[in-house]
């Protein structure tokens, strides 16, 4: 019988404690790797979500708030900017293109974005990749909708399907714009950005949705307008939530940003997405550190548990260790036996942690994506993750070597008389 077999049998004889230790090491592994992965993924997701846009312009409020709702659909806009301002920006000599966007409505939990065709022409994500259609066309009529890939997959929508949009983010029955039917005309390719979770309609469509609403209240029964009634009206928007701006030259970014703050007729301002993102990372950096410390503490607790368990077992196993010694086992065998036990527990713990991570990736990430509107790319295990696992195993083996050393010393001079 090899020492490994002996170690496995010894661990099996202390099944409950071994399982608890494996779980605690697994949890530490999951937290250490998982939190780091989610952090990286969130950053990647945020950074990946917009590119080529020099400024995001919106009503004056917090720069982070503007970025969060305009690009990531997180939170709700509390003010709008006027269409005149959009026109003024568009006509500015430094500006190459403008994409006005209007937010605030939703469809079965997915945000609805009202915009112009320029959105599909100029908006870029990742490494300056434009949006592409998987099937269908971009919208051309007020009641056309182009949906993101996640919306299409999860709701199993196809071209030609009719959908109803809801007022605000609520999906309660009375908030649904049930008399306005939108037809899906296009499905976008997967981008792994919030675009995938978005239902895109034209600004006219957005206006049409609310044309019969008065002072933020739904129309009374006799005031309700249907698709065909709406089309007879002027569907031009007076306000939008924000706009993405591309400049002719990057050199103009700061001067144009400064200039925007001087416009007195409409209090708007512009943010540089990359800089605001850095601000977000700086803000969450503290939370990052706290999370890291908590995770390391969880690992320390797990390792102390391992140490305690080995110490307690050492006392119970005094006789067993001496039997091995008397049968010809060298104290190094006993030392190795205990180290092996720590090694096996940590390997199994790390495997449990990795398996849990895979389960979370499969089951939990889609849930987070739906709830937060974030598109998380939790990659499979990377070299750095294996390094973390290796460190956990080394730490466990090191911890095991303490009681193992004591077992070595104790049994070095003990013999037959000590077994009784």
């Amino acid at each position, binding site marked *: *019988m*090899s*020492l490994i077999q*002996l170690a496995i*049998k*010894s661990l*099996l*004889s202390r099944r409950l404690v071994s399982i608890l230790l494996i779980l605690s090491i697994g949890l530490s592994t999951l937290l250490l790797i998982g939190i780091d992965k989610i952090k990286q993924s969130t950053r990647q997701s945020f950074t990946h979500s917009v590119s080529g846009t020099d400024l995001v312009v919106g009503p004056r409020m917090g720069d982070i708030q503007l970025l969060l709702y305009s690009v990531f659909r997180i939170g709700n806009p509390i003010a709008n900017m006027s269409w005149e301002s959009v026109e003024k920006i568009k006509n500015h000599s430094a500006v190459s293109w403008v994409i006005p966007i209007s937010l605030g409505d939703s469809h079965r939990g997915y945000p609805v974005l009202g915009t112009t065709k320029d959105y599909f022409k100029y908006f870029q994500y990742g490494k300056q990749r434009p949006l592409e259609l998987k099937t269908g066309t971009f919208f051309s009529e007020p009641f056309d909708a182009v949906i993101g890939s996640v919306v299409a997959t999860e709701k199993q929508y196809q071209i030609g399907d009719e959908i109803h949009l809801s007022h605000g983010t609520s999906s309660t029955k009375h908030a649904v714009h049930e008399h306005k039917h939108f037809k899906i005309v296009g499905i976008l390719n997967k981008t792994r950005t919030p675009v995938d979770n978005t239902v895109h309609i034209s600004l006219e469509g957005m206006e049409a949705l609310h044309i019969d609403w008065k002072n933020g209240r739904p129309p009374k029964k006799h005031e309700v307008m249907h698709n065909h009634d709406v089309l007879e009206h002027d569907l031009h928007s007076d306000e939008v939530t924000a706009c993405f701006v591309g400049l002719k030259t990057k050199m103009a970014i700061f001067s144009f940003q400064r200039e925007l703050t001087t416009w007195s007729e409409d209090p708007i301002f512009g943010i540089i997405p990359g800089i605001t993102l850095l601000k977000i990372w700086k803000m969450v950096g503290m939370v990052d550190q706290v999370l890291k410390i908590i995770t390391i503490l969880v690992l320390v607790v797990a390792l102390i548990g391992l140490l305690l368990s080995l110490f307690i077992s050492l006392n119970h196993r005094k*006789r*067993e260790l*001496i*039997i*091995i*010694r*008397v*049968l*010809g*086992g*060298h*104290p*190094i*065998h006993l030392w190795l036996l205990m180290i092996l036990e720590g090694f096996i527990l940590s390997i199994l713990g790390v495997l449990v942690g990795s398996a849990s991570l895979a389960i979370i990736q499969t089951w939990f990430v889609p849930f987070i994506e739906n709830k937060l509107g974030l598109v998380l790319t939790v990659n499979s295990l990377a070299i750095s993750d294996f390094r973390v696992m290796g460190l956990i195993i080394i730490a466990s083996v090191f911890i095991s070597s303490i009681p193992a050393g004591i077992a070595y010393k104790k049994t*070095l*001079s*003990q*013999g*037959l*008389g000590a*077994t*009784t």
Partner: protein
Amino acid sequence: MTTSLINISDLKFRYDRSDNWLLSIDNWSLLSNEHVFIEGCSGSGKSSFLNIITGLIPIKDGHISILNEEINKQSKIQSDRFRANHFGIIFQMFNLIPYLNVIENIVLACSFSKRKKERVLKKGISLNDEAQRLCRELDIDHSLFSKSINELSIGQQQRVAVARALIGEPEIIIADEPTSALDERRKNQFLELLFTECEKVNSTLVFVSHDQTLKSQFKKVYSLSDSTLKLQSKSNQETEISPCP
């Protein structure tokens, strides 16, 4: 032909904190295939003597030669290997490992001894087969082979301990107070079994006990008192019973 198996000369031993010699043996030898009984009261140094000849406790003064090997000159690793290869040990409380089953406990003795393993494999059978064969010889029912040690009676555990000591046919069997937990009838049965099995594998038996009722069954009886081993004559064995304090 009998040859000298263990030779001890000028052995002096005491524990670090003690001023008096626990063992002081000028000359003592044991022939191969002998069955000897060593008696002594508690604290007389019986276990220390066994620990010394099995290499568990190193000595500073004296010479011990076993199978022509000066064990007091061996390194710790060498002496552990020597013990694993040439000794079969039966403890006072049988001391089996609770999480191993009967066969695994027996085979464990070969885990640290290449020699014992080779001896078994030379017969053309596996370690498990040999353990099962020994179990059958020792009247351990095959239904117990995969049972946990905790499910066995004291008598069954004792026989498993004997099988573990016998596997690989070691030259020397050490039995340290193996009958202390048994009643009179079982003591005699056990001794008979031990003699038979040792004879089968040509092992030398060193039987240590403070139970003087057993010594009449041995041809040679040594008494450990006043730090030394004294051979008792056959007539002494029957008459002289020195009570332990």
